[in-house]
């Protein structure tokens, strides 16, 4: 069950300065079983802030490196400052940097390599989310 209890689709916001990542994620969501989500895309953090302020976003997939920012430590707090309280997951081609270990300090709920994202993972994340908030176990599993 990947939809919410009231039957509406989950609204997932992808924030990535590379449009190709939007194309790829859309394709993965299509192939994922029971992944009934509504994927929205913005290419910069400014757009993402505006979008979460507008409301209706259930979860954010945030690219680690959004030009001209250095990494999520500069962008994730902007979403929290905008009042977004839903799960934020950092996605990146490389999550081996040591600074990723402190992701919780910057308002991030989980991190995941872009290479790891496939239908199974998305389903797992969504199921965890639909139970309530994303549990810590989820993020730990992906460490």
């Amino acid at each position, binding site marked *: 069950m990947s939809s919410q209890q009231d039957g509406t689709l989950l609204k997932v916001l992808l924030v990535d*300065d*590379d449009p*190709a*990542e939007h*194309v*790829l994620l859309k*394709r993965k969501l299509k192939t994922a079983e029971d992944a009934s989500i509504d994927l929205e895309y913005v*290419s*910069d953090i400014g757009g993402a802030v505006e979008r979460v302020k507008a409301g209706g976003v259930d979860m954010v997939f945030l690219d*680690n*490196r*959004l*030009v*001209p920012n*250095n990494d999520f430590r500069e962008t994730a707090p902007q979403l929290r400052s905008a009042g977004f309280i839903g799960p934020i997951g950092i996605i*990146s*081609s*490389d999550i*081996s*940097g040591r600074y990723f270990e402190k992701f919780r300090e910057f308002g991030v709920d989980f991190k995941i390599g*872009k*290479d790891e994202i496939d239908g199974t993972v998305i389903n797992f994340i969504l199921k965890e989310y639909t139970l309530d908030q994303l549990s810590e176990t989820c993020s730990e599993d992906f460490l």
Partner: protein
Amino acid sequence: MRLPVSPESLLHALYETLPDPVMIIDADRKLIASNAAASAVFGYSAEEFLGLGPRDFYASIEDAREVGRALFPLDKATQTLHGQYQFLRKDGSIVTAELTANKILDADGKAVALVAILRDISETVAAREEHRRTESILNTALASISEGFIIFDKQDRLLLCNDAYFEIYAISAPAMRIGATFESIIRYGVAHGQYADCGKTEEEHEAWVAWRMERHRNPSKPYIQRLSTNRSLLVEERIAEDGLNVGVRTDVSILSQAKNEAERLGQIIENVAQEVYLFSLTKDKIVSANKAARDNLQYSLEELRELSAADFIAGSAQDEMNALIAPTGSAESKIQIFDTMHRRKDGSTYPCRVRLEHMEDPDDPVALAFVEDMTERLEIERALKQKEHEFETLARNLPDFIVRAKPDTTLTYVNEHYARYVGRPADEMIGRKFLDFVPEANRAMLIEHLASLSPEQPLRTSEQAMPSLTGETLWCLWSNLMVFEDGKPVELVSVGRDITQVREAQNRIARQSRELELRNNALEQFSAVVSHDLKAPLRQIRLFADMIAEDIKLGKAEDLATFSGYISQRSEAMEAMTSSLLEYSQLAYQRINPEKFQLSKALNEAWTNLSVNVEEAQASLIVEKDIDLYGDFTLLTHLYQNLFANSLKYRRQDSSVEIRVEAQTDREGHKITVEDDGIGIAPEQAERIFGVFQRLHADEKLYSGTGIGLALCRRIAESHHGSIHLDTSYRDGARFVITLPRQGAG
């Protein structure tokens, strides 16, 4: 028996010849007759006696009354009286006599007169008195002498014993009763622990008692007896002519102790390593010499006693020796100390120091000589002098500062090196305070430093900056050692080592470590960026290729062109990145080949290389001032080329570009600014733009590039020991400030 004379004649003869005074007294107590002896004793003539009354005879009236009451009147029943009374002579002297009075009866038996016979006992009384007085003196004498005195009679029973004896044998005292036998007394003493040497067992006690009794009965020489009270007694016993056993005990504890101590002292002197001699000054001979003296001189004591001092003192004339050992009257010259040579029996000699002390005994003046064989000492002194010389040589040649001082820092020694540093002769510094030569700024610290030295922590070190005479700063590592004796400071030894070069090396290493850390951080970031930016397009290429394959399998063709377009785009990006990395790696870590050239030459070269872009952007270059640079021409040209390329790329749309270069040189080095009138860079990005693959603009169509140009610029500037940064105060475009050292790339 019948006598040839009549009784009257006989009585008369007796009366007259009796040596004792005889007087006849009538009923009225008047003397009516006396014999010749009475006149002789009392000094009265026979006529003078007649009519004398009792008051004329008795020395005391009480005696006269007593006798009168006993015999008078004559009809009293008392017939006779015998008593001792004192009588007066004619000359007033007193005579003590025994009075025997008998009444004379008539034919009727009536008492008519008294006959009194007086026996002069003055001498007897005097003898008794003398005896009593003598006995008293004896007792007093016995009581007053400290020696114990005791007498046993022939039956060995205690007859006399003075207080001292009781006090000496306090434990045995209860047994010392008059009449007690000697054996019973010593057995009591043995049983109660009186004697120290009587043994512990019953058998030992018996044996000791038997031995003691034997000595008591047959006394010979005095001997020392030890008591359990730590007293030593000299026991002297002898049998007197009348068979009495007289014993005297003298406490010789002190003497024994003194004897023991004297024996110990004698042993010590005998065995000390120093030679000790005793000379008789009158005989000029050795009286005694200890073992060290005998061994060193190789003579026996008997042989030495035949020698005079001159016989074994080498090289001294007899007169000289006589003068040395001659008795003196003054106290000052009683002790003489001199160095000489002793000659052994085998003829060999050795140097020695003699301390001669004259003992001014008038009977037999002697001299006591303590002789120290100086052979070893002189060798040690020679070795010490050699060591001192070596130390001085070492201290003189050591590059360190060496200072010795009293605890209050009064200098006692400074080596030449420190004296040169201070700029004074070493001799002038001796006696002055160490602190006087310490830089003012370091004095408080040194005082605190020295005050903290203790027997537990006598050494402390500190690094101090010291101005040299030439004005340069010298760094010195001072080690201050306070020498303590019995907990009190006696000397300060300070050694200072010039560590200027070491410190510079440490600073250089620290600086290099910091640089290395920065470079490592940069390299880490570089690795992360490269890893990310190279992985991302590869992953996308793989995914799009998979999607194409899936769609073809499913017979779907509508997205294939899009997917393949992404693949091409990502491939091109990869290619550009790898080219940039190659360029970076080739230039960033290239060996510097410094040369001297003009700035304008490098700028022209860079501008020419970008001629196509320059033309496209309608750009112009303005160089305000030309300067000489010393560095790698190729790399610095590349630096300016990258800056120009950035200015051309990030220009305002539909506007020409003007790039202005200014240069100036001052004491610190060259400062070159490159500014443009383009879109500029946000101040918060001032540092990030110098990172590898850092781009500020995602729009590839508008601002293409790999984001490696400024990273390369910084690398080239730093490799020349210079820097590059963005002037964040500049608002009309972007302005980069490059600094380069005057001496070139070092």
